[in-house]
């Protein structure tokens, strides 16, 4: 292990702001992007399922109405 202490590690020889600003933004993007993408993918699936169910219901009701008439 290269570092003497944890505060040494955070300090980064005076470059802490720059190094952690870089790693922090990278981590933020690489956590947020998959989360948002997965959420969106699931939302698409739920919406399409809802739309399909509504369309099938409509079709069934139309068929029923025709039978009754």
């Amino acid at each position, binding site marked *: *292990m*290269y570092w003497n202490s944890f505060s040494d590690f955070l300090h980064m*020889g005076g470059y802490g702001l720059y190094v952690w600003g*870089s790693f922090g933004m990278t981590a933020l993007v690489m956590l947020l992007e998959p989360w948002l993408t997965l959420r969106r*993918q699931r939302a698409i*699936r739920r919406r399409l399922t809802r739309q399909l169910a509504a369309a099938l219901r409509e079709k069934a009701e139309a068929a029923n109405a025709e039978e009754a008439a």
Partner: protein
Amino acid sequence: MTQFTHLYKFAAPAAFYPLAGRLVPWFWGLTALFGGIGLWLGLAVAPTDFQQGEGYRIIFVHVGASWMSMFIYVVMAFWAAIGLAFNTRLSGMMTAALAPTGALFTFLSLWTGALWGKPMWGAWWVWDARLTSELILLFLYIGFIALTRAIDDPRRADRAGAVLALVGVVNIPIIYFSVKWWSTLHQGASVSLAKSPSMATIMLWGMLFCALAMWMYAIAVSLIRVRGIILERERHTDWVKALLLKPEKS
């Protein structure tokens, strides 16, 4: 030939959708594995740089993000060419799925570059060839996304986007060779095929593993995104209808 027909089978969205779903966890696993090794080498093992002190450690995120920003664009251009040549449905979906991830890596490249430039050059930004051409890459990604979303018919959007992706790919060699062709503040390549790398072995390995982790990440997140695009675009097909009526799993 049989191998080709086998591969061709997965070019159909109906076959690719479940395959992509099965692949995603594996690519997350590889991301964690390579990222763990890369961060450990880069932050815990690699010694300080004799010129740049600890500030050089930005390299472990900067180089991977920059490589991916260029590589994803080349992959997009590849799918764009396939789509224009063979009129395959999946290629346009792949191009569309890759663009946001490419744009984000380009942003990360510029962001980490600015945070590296400030302490080393004394400026967040300079209008030099490397930085300017990378900024143009970000505009190309944003332009691609805006253009394809502005066109309602997906097949037409694919074709327009494909032309933009192919024209814009000329920018990639310009970014890559900019440090050679023009005198710039940006340092030369850390890794080249022609000569041995200009950096310590342990730093090089840390950088390579971090870049590899970003590569696996890009595949995982693009596969998730392309699954959403496939469902959306194929919603009128029988296979998607059957899938939607099944309980949420695959």
